[in-house]
């Protein structure tokens, strides 16, 4: 399953001009609000008809303005999970779930069990909590046996605790490969946790697409620029820190819930890294990682993106152009990356598959 999207559309205020491909797995359409993400997902759903579009799912053309093809939404077989759930208020949870149900691999009992909503079936949507509503909305979309799930900021309306409740269900959908997912989000933690592919949008244009590490490491990402590194939990210490083993050396982060031995993905913000040419002494920061400068790139916003090679890992630091020239940084130089433990938030840590 793969989805090819080409959309040209005038939206209030700007021109949406996006081309991207979503391969199997979970693709996050990532960008700030107003960047055109929801318009794109509505175009894929057929809920809006863009000025120019070519949208192909596998080999099935869903929209092609050149050829005059437009498949109406009810014939697209795409499951749309809306931000606020959009459950039918006059139907019970069970009748919401069965509204679009078809026979297929996602059968009723399995979906209801996976989402933990069996005790809600007789209830009315009005009485559900935000998290319960999201789970029912996911189940309703799944039971229609869609070729692709479109999720439009499904967590944006939820508080942190509810987000933590729903995220694992999307991880399961991704890992059980039940169905490919196109997921709209403006949240870096969701990208870190869920994405197998990222398409980054700004003001209606695709500015980067690829793996999360590639896209977050791109200079165009500005404040969102980050590295994704793999690590394994070694042990939890009594002083509130967890010791991780990264390929480049030990890392200390605030206590995580993951058990020793668990593989993790860690997002390290590019602006949270301090560079030092000598090994610094008398510093409060716990993580001092030696590396070598692999690349120096000027970012569009005037900062410099420094890529450090540390064993197999690459770490990206975003520093000012003034610092880069004062330190006379150059490719091939040895350099230390300094990372405060507390700069790594719990939402930056995700369990890694495999």
């Amino acid at each position, binding site marked *: 399953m793969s989805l090819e999207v080409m959309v040209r559309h005038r939206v209030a205020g700007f021109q949406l001009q996006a081309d991207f491909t979503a391969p199997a797995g979970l693709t996050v359409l990532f960008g700030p609000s107003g960047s055109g993400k929801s318009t794109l997902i509505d175009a894929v*759903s*057929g*809920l809006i008809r863009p000025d120019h579009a070519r949208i192909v799912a596998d080999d099935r053309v869903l929209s092609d303005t050149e050829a005059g093809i437009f498949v*109406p*939404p*009810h*014939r*697209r*077989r*795409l*499951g*749309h999970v*809306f931000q*606020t759930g*959009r459950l*039918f*208020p*006059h*139907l*019970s949870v069970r009748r919401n779930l069965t*509204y*679009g149900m*078809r026979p297929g691999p996602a059968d009723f009992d399995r979906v209801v069990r996976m989402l933990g909503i069996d005790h809600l079936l007789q209830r*009315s*949507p*009005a*009485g559900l909590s935000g998290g319960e509503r999201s789970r029912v909305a996911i189940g*309703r*979309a799944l039971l*229609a046996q869609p070729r692709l799930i479109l999720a439009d900021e499904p967590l944006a309306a939820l508080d942190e605790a509810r987000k933590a409740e729903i995220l694992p269900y999307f991880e399961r959908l991704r890992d059980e490969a039940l169905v490919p997912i196109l997921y709209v989000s403006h949240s870096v933690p969701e990208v870190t946790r869920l994405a197998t592919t990222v398409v980054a949008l700004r003001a209606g244009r695709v500015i980067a697409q690829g793996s999360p590490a590639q896209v977050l490491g791109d200079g165009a990402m500005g404040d969102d620029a980050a590295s994704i590194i793999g690590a394994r939990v070694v042990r939890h210490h009594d002083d509130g820190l967890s010791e991780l083993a990264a390929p480049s050396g030990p890392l200390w982060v605030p206590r995580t819930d993951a058990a020793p031995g668990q593989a993790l993905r860690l997002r390290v913000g590019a602006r949270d890294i301090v560079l030092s040419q000598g090994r610094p002494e008398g510093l409060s920061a716990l993580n001092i990682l030696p590396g070598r400068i692999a690349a120096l790139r000027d970012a569009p916003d005037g900062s410099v993106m420094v890529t450090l090679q540390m064993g197999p890992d690459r770490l990206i630091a975003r520093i000012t152009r003034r610092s880069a020239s004062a330190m006379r940084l150059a490719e091939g130089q040895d350099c230390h990356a300094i990372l405060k433990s507390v700069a790594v938030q719990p939402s930056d840590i995700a369990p890694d598959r495999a």
Partner: protein
Amino acid sequence: MGGWLGPEAWQAVALSLKVAFWATALSLPLGILAAHALARWRFPGRGLLNGLVHLPLILPPVVTGYLLLLVFGRQGAVGSWLHEVFGITLAFRWTGAALAAAIMGFPLMVRAIRLAIEAVDPGLEAAAATLGAGPMRVFATVTLPLAAPGVVAGAILSFAKAIGEFGATITFVSNIPGQTQTLPSAIYALLQVPGGEAAAGRLVVIAIVIAMAALMLSELVARRVARRVAGA
């Protein structure tokens, strides 16, 4: 009872109820269709349809009745065709009274239903479409159930209007006791003859009772439907 009111007056009450029932029942499907078209469809001539639907509300009823006579009378374009092909006569029959009542109540009915349909979240209809429901199924399973309180309100308004319709009815089907003499025309007729006030007064009481009963019933039904739709 017959003694208190007299057989002619009872006939008028029964006829009014019959006329109002058929006027409402037969115009309801058309009213729902017109309301949905005005609320959700974009098509050329939408403004014209809106104007046509509302015309009976603005025109003097006697003008509407006269136009009905021109079009649906025995010599009228539609009236003569109906008579020849189906043997149906409308002018000066109770069926004509039902037609006049339906047309006069139509704007009220369409308005109430249209407002209710416009209040249905289009996002829910879109959600139903993404779940594989075609336009007909979306309408029958999402739009109509959620707009049900407005449909009930529209039907009751139309019924109440039909009970009270006078101008268009008397122009189109006249005031024939036992045939086309509805409650309002019976009251009018009684007030034209000396000594008719007492009988007219009794009919007035009945008119008030019917109106109150219809209102209370509509409140009750609307509240029930609203509760079921809200899912509480």
